């Protein structure tokens, strides 16, 4: 980018600040996970590659979102959903890879991918294609409920369903604890997204946060969820590799 077309950024533009830091943090995490593939045993390489892909895909989108936001001042809803629709199913793939050693079947992988895609597609329709006017609330609530069903399915699966049961069966305390930590990311970290959804114009919590604040929270949550998710997977992979080598 040429210096003469760089937009000036106000020091209190926290949205731009978090887009920039988010972009760099995701990129750095991606490089880290990719390089660290060499430090883990072969069966964990795929998990780290997926972690690197999640943060890598997010970094590219953050690069675009940062410019889009600076140029228009708008919230980059379109780019966000493109990012989420690629990265969230990949996070679900991590659950499959972690529990694969305990006997997870391909069907689990597809169930989680379908649920996450359903959650995001419904969320996108609810947020991006809102007709406005009288039917706005009914539209956003209907699609919000449908989207939440996908979220609750994943949440249940990770905490009490197949993923939790497989983790319990895995004979590895590291995996058991790791899956539980990832469960906390799904429970607490992902909760920001429905809250953000309810903060859109006409939403029940619209008085709670402005669109700018929602963007700041999304950016912080995205960075914590994606990088944190990857770091938990990385720590499991390192711990298990050490065990294998001992």
């Amino acid at each position, binding site marked *: 980018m040429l210096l003469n077309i760089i937009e000036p950024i106000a020091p209190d533009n926290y949205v731009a600040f978090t887009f920039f830091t988010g972009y760099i943090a995701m990129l750095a995490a991606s490089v880290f996970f990719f390089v660290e593939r060499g430090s883990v045993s072969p069966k964990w390489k795929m998990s780290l590659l997926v972690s690197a892909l999640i943060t890598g895909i997010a970094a590219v989108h953050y690069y675009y979102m940062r410019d889009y936001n600076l140029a228009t001042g708008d919230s980059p809803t379109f780019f966000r959903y493109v990012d989420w629709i690629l990265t969230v199913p990949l996070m679900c793939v991590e659950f499959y890879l972690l529990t694969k050693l305990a006997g997870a079947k391909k069907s689990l992988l597809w169930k989680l991918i379908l649920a996450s895609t359903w959650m995001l597609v419904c969320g996108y329709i609810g947020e991006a294609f809102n007709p406005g006017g009288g039917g706005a*609330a*009914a539209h*956003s*609530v209907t699609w*919000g*409920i449908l989207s*939440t069903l996908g979220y*609750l399915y994943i*949440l*249940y699966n990770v*905490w*009490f369903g197949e993923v939790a049961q497989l983790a319990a069966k895995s004979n590895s305390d590291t995996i058991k*604890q790791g899956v*539980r930590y990832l*469960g*906390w990311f799904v*429970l*607490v970290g992902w909760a920001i997204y*429905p809250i953000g959804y*309810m903060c859109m114009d006409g*939403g*029940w919590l619209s008085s709670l946060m402005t669109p700018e604040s929602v963007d700041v929270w999304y950016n912080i949550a995205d960075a914590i969820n994606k990088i944190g998710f990857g770091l938990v997977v990385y720590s499991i992979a390192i711990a298990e590799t050490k065990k294998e080598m001992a």
Partner: protein
Amino acid sequence: MNRYSFAYLVIVYLLFAIYTLNGEIDIDHQLKAALVLMSFFGIPHGAIDNVLFLSKHKMPQLKFYSLYLSTIAIYCCCWYFFPIFSLLFFFLISSYHFGESQLSDYAFQSRFKKVIYTLWGVSLLSTLVFYNQSELLILCQEFTDTVKFGHVFEHPSIDYLFYGSNVILITFLCLKKYRDKHNIQDLLSELFQLFLIHLTFYLFPIIISFTLYFIFLHSMKVLTQEYNYLKQVRPELNLKKFIVLLLPHTLISLIFLFVFYIGIQTQVVPISLFLFSVISISVITLPHAIIMTNFYD
């Protein structure tokens, strides 16, 4: 997170949707929903006190019922003569009972465990009152026989209790994790549940807030514990038999409540529905809390 918190969370998301669509839920619908949930889960969770107690102690049924009903009768008399004291006593025993059930999984050995249970309950009830103070005051002022309770709910000590109990409780939980080297997951689960309670008590009206806690985090948990315990004592027990076991006293309670409701509506019983609700819940809670302490011991 446990299954009860998950069920609680699902209902909270559902309420978010209803509130987004409607803006609010009118008091009639709140009461109807609360009544249905109380009938199906709230009342049944205390409907087998006799079975629980008599499975541990050898005592003639007649003696048990006499003691149980005498406790209720004495408490009713207290309500007549000392209403404010009775209300405060109700908060105290409820606090202890809620805390005991909430922390029952921890198997505390400390001689201060009763204080810790009460602290948890005080934090719960003070949070409920703190976030819904104005709603409670309006409710109290609506009936002549409950106006005096308004002084309790607007007393400055509510604020101190709210901040004090929550800060001490969270500090205690963190210190306990550090001292006993407990799994951090237990601490996170406990803090998450506290967060959920604060969120719902803050966002929703008092009837919805309390019903959510009472049904999903208290009654369902206690019902499961009772079922699991009785399953050990009577291996032939299944869900159907358990429901049959719950039915007699649940039905008697519902009939009793219905008769009094009619009595109040026709002004044969000269008290307000609100006061009657508080008194009936409190007098049932006292013997139930005693039996449950024995059960957890």
